[in-house]
């Protein structure tokens, strides 16, 4: 127990340093130029943070999932894009770690990931599926000499051009149903990634997520044998929603901190007087922030508890699906609300992009939250589940 606590603390101390020394100082430039946060990701490699969640037997640090979530929060406070790259990589790592099912190829892969600090991107969305991650068009297609291949049209692949490897959902075989999916891990030297479209979005600009066509050839052992329909509810969906909501909370917390610093500076200019009107507004923002914080931390607790149950049974229930869907919806709506509230406190000083109290990037970054798996699609899923769920 104390070993794992020490491990988590050492890891988080490293993350804190990366956030302060690399993610924060470059955040404005990353945002302005919509460029990849190289400095922060390179620092993560040096800190061996990319293999933090890999068990020690495969060369990783074996930190707890709580520590990964906390790291997303810490990075989010300094640079939303750096935090999102970190989070998305950890989602892929968690999907492999929790579902490799004794596969020698994936065990070796995790050792290699740890040795080389490889960065994994994901290609789970596909043109033509209407945004439903649970369906694929692209399929694992047998080729000559036992080598398989797929071609997938992806509407977005976050940091695809900067990743070493790609984890992709595809149908199990050319004649498989759209929902009969597997996850395939392919290395850059096994793929052609042809970018299409540009990347000049409102927020999360450093994630560099234009669309692309992926063509890959690989031996079949690079497909996880556990079906994606099991991996999604047990790991990929809840881990995505928890890591994302932690980093959104981080962004919102920094916006709040900037608003608080603004109010404090105003109060100092008028010592002995009543708290300035902005202080009242700040109090309103704080109550919005505390709602967000409560939702995010209770979801993490529930996920960790459920993960410790044998067979992770409760994660496969509808109640669990609703729980983590609601986290996504609530956090993605609440985080921009807090940022907008912070802007209301700071006024024009926060609206400007070049003051110590600027919160424009925070607001823009958190506005991406409702699009990452569109909230309306999640509501549609929930609406179906609510017809049958008994206790929610």
């Amino acid at each position: 127990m104390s070993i794992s606590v020490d491990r988590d603390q050492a890891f988080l101390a490293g993350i804190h340093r990366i956030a302060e020394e690399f993610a924060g100082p470059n955040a404005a430039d990353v945002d302005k130029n919509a460029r990849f946060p190289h400095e922060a990701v390179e620092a993560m490699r040096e800190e061996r943070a990319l293999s933090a969640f890999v068990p020690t037997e495969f060369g990783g640090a074996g930190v707890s999932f709580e520590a990964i979530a906390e790291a997303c929060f810490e990075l989010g406070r300094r640079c939303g894009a750096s935090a999102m790259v970190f989070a998305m990589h950890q989602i892929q790592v968690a999907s492999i770690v929790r579902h490799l099912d004794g596969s020698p190829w994936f065990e070796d892969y995790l050792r290699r990931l740890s040795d080389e600090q490889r960065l994994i991107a994901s290609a789970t969305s596909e043109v033509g599926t209407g945004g439903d991650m649970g369906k694929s068009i692209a399929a694992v297609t047998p080729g000559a000499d036992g080598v398989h291949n797929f071609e997938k049209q992806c509407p977005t692949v976050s940091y695809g051009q900067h990743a070493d490897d790609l984890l992709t959902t595809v149908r199990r075989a050319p004649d498989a149903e759209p929902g009969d999916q597997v996850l395939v891990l392919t290395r850059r030297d096994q793929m052609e990634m042809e970018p299409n479209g540009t990347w000049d979005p409102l927020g999360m600009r450093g994630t560099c997520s234009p669309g692309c066509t992926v063509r890959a050839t690989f031996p079949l052992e690079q497909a996880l044998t556990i079906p994606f329909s099991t991996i999604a509810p047990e790991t990929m969906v809840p881990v995505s929603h928890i890591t994302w909501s932690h980093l959104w909370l981080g962004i919102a917390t920094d916006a709040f901190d900037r608003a608080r610093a603004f109010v404090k500076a105003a109060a100092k200019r008028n010592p002995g007087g009543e708290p300035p009107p902005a202080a009242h507004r700040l109090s309103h923002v704080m109550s919005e922030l505390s709602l967000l914080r409560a939702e995010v931390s209770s979801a993490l607790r529930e996920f960790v508890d459920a993960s410790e149950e044998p067979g992770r049974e409760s994660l496969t229930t509808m109640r669990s699906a609703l729980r983590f869907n609601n986290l996504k919806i609530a956090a993605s709506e609440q985080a921009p609300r807090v940022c907008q509230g912070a802007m209301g406190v700071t006024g024009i000083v926060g609206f400007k992009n070049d003051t110590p109290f600027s919160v424009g990037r925070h607001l823009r970054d958190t506005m991406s939250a409702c699009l990452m798996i569109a909230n309306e699609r999640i509501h549609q899923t929930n609406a179906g589940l609510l017809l049958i769920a008994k206790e929610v």
Partner: protein
Amino acid sequence: MTDEIRRILRENARLSTDVDALSNDADLYQAGMTSHASVNVMLALEDAFDVEFPDSMLKRSVFESIAAIEAAVSELQGSVAA
């Protein structure tokens, strides 16, 4: 009961294959049942067999095959009788 379950699947599961061509152990999700369709299957099962699936049984594995559905419905009916 199997026939009734097959009827419900035929009307609600929107499988890409004929229900009669599936064995009792065949994976319904692999046969094309979406999670949305599975909700309709559950509603129809509750109606037809006058049972209520508790939340602990509302999970993928309970509805993955005709045999699994039959076992679940039998269990629920048994618990009512007892």
